[in-house]
């Protein structure tokens, strides 16, 4: 048997794939409308739930984390409603004041901690440290979790790039100045996170960078106040208060 000629093969292929496509999209649309229905049922149940448990959501950190996770899974952002104006969903009215407002309060306190420690850490602090500081401040409301802090920082997004979270090594960090960490800076900060501090020779040996590159990145970190010098060690050491954690 001859193979079909090139052109007709193309034609037949495109015809059958078109019919597959239309069948697929029919399936998808029927499935998605079913899902849509289910989702809105979930959402209304969630709303019901949040009405009943607004108090628990605010006062129990674990309960709150689970609730937030549920919201996220269902595509509902309890925080998005905070700043929105009239006419927005029921969520805005319900959660805007209840849960969203609570997160906003946390955000304000996170901003305060970041400001207060900026001179010390150059505007880079671990979420764990912020959480510890918030919980050690007396008489300042309920206990918060790292999850709350992350969400709270997320709620600041509409205010611009001033506050961001970023992953550094195995830690979540909050960056409270609008300045990116360079690639080399990141590498060194991660090394400090793991080792506690770094020295010129540690960087030379482990990263196989040349002297000039090491000097440049260290000088940059110093001038951004991200690292501190310890000159009383055998070889000058560079530390960062971003990972100081009170235990």
């Amino acid at each position, binding site marked *: 048997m001859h193979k079909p000629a090139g052109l007709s093969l193309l034609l037949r292929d495109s015809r059958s794939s078109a019919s597959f496509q239309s069948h697929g999209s029919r399936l998808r649309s029927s499935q998605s409308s079913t899902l849509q229905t289910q989702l809105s049922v979930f959402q209304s149940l969630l709303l019901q739930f949040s009405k009943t448990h607004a108090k628990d959501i605010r006062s129990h950190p674990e309960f709150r984390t689970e609730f937030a996770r549920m919201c996220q899974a269902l595509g509902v952002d309890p925080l998005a409603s905070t700043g929105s104006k009239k006419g927005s969903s029921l969520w805005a009215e319900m959660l805007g004041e209840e849960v969203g407002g609570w997160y906003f309060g946390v955000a304000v306190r996170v901003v305060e901690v970041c400001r207060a420690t900026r001179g010390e850490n150059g505007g880079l602090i671990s979420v764990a440290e912020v959480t510890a500081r918030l919980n050690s401040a007396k008489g300042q409301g309920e206990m918060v979790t790292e999850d709350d802090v992350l969400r709270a920082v997320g709620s600041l997004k509409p205010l611009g790039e001033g506050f961001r979270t970023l992953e550094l090594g195995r830690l979540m960090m909050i960056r409270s100045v609008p300045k990116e960490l360079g690639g080399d800076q990141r590498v060194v900060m991660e090394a400090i996170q793991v080792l506690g501090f770094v020295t010129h020779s540690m960087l030379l040996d482990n990263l196989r960078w040349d002297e000039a590159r090491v000097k440049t990145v260290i000088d940059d970190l110093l001038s951004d106040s991200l690292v*501190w010098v310890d000159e009383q060690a055998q070889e000058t050491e560079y530390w960062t208060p971003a990972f100081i954690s009170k235990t």
Partner: protein
Amino acid sequence: MADFQYPALYSFPPFFTRQPNATTWSTQQSAWSALILAYCERHRLFKFSVGHELFTNTELSRRLPTPAAIEVMEAMVKQGKAEWIGPEKQEILVYWKTPRDWANAVYDWIDTTGQKGGVLTLYEIAWGQLTASTEFHGLDETVLRRALDVLVERGVAKIFGSGDELGVKFF
């Protein structure tokens, strides 16, 4: 007195090296100043010298070098939180409460105990039985003198006598 709460920075080795970055140094300097004030208040110290053990962390084998320590103390003096004792600049009077605060405390006590118009010696104010329960009992003599100067300036006290026999009259 072992329960003094050192700040986290105190276990951070670079805290004992003067930071070359101006911004970081200014933060470091305020942290030192806050630490000295809190430490002195906790231990009721009125004088603090450049050789004080607080500048040394034996656990870390680190010591804030003397020039940096003097810079910290100089900054405290500039901010009215301390005063140099003598021109050698080796020791400060530490104002965890300012002379004005002490002046108010003394004058409140004079007022509430109805001693206006009376005369007291400096020794009676700092060490007398009558003041045993007040917060200024045991106050350093020079600091007390600064406090009384504040009251003199306000026109509510007058100092007379000389040497060890200084007396104050309150109005």
